[in-house]
């Protein structure tokens, strides 16, 4: 079971191209199903900047890299839509690359970001 003491809700934004709406929708539904205390929003990639500004998400999963003008996020997953190319993962300011990450890898990012909520001296992405 999810056993989190004083679980803090976190906001997650999934933003991928409209051509991959199936991926966007399914990933968002899956995260919310498996981490129901999170607030998951999905958006077209063209709305990324607008939605980041509106939602102030803690975690962003997108096919594009973080930019300084998107503000500081606890985690940013630059998800490659080509499984042969690495996805770039930043959590708390630490960067890693994963080839074709699966569901468990993504949930690890969400869980780690959640642990970082409210922490002091946490790096940002």
């Amino acid at each position: 079971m999810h056993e989190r003491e004083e679980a803090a809700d976190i906001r997650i934004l999934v933003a991928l191209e409209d051509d991959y709406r199936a991926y966007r929708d399914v990933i968002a539904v899956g995260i919310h199903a498996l981490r129901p205390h999170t607030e998951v929003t999905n958006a077209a990639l063209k709305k990324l900047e607008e939605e980041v500004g509106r939602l102030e998400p803690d975690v962003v999963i997108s096919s594009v890299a973080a930019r300084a003008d998107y503000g500081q996020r606890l985690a940013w997953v630059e998800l490659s839509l080509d499984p042969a190319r690495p996805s770039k993962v930043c959590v708390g300011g630490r960067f890693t690359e994963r080839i074709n990450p699966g569901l468990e890898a993504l949930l690890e990012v969400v869980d780690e970001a959640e642990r970082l909520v409210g922490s002091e001296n946490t790096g940002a992405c």
Partner: protein
Amino acid sequence: MLATMNSEQTEKNVPIGGVASRHVEGHARTRRVLLVDDHALFRGVLAIICEEQTSLDENVQAGSLAEARRALSSRNSKSFALAVVDLDLPDEDGVELIGELRQAGIPVLALSASRDHERLAGVSGLEPGQVLSTAASYDEILGAVRKLVEDLGEESP
């Protein structure tokens, strides 16, 4: 929205070629879905959706056509109730696999990055509703899977 699941349930979904199971009361035979897609994240979540939102109760996952063929050859093809197949596989065109699945009597939902559904349906011999682009919504995908499951009837595996 999906029912809440815990991390132990997540663990069941699946090593490639392995089987994840969630036996459902009410039908005697296991309904197993073959999920063939090289994008591990999409495939993994789709497996959960198929099991939680339909009466499918096991999934076998493959990331390539070769893995799918191994999964099929390691079991009686009748052990698969249906298959969801990405047409854009890394090792070969998924259309090849769809022909083999149809010959084995396994209903198929095909996914493709191409939006030319009619051409894809024509090539693969599928009905237009059995071919969706990756631009489809969650509801469209779930609806198509549910339709195939409904068409299986109660007695089919």
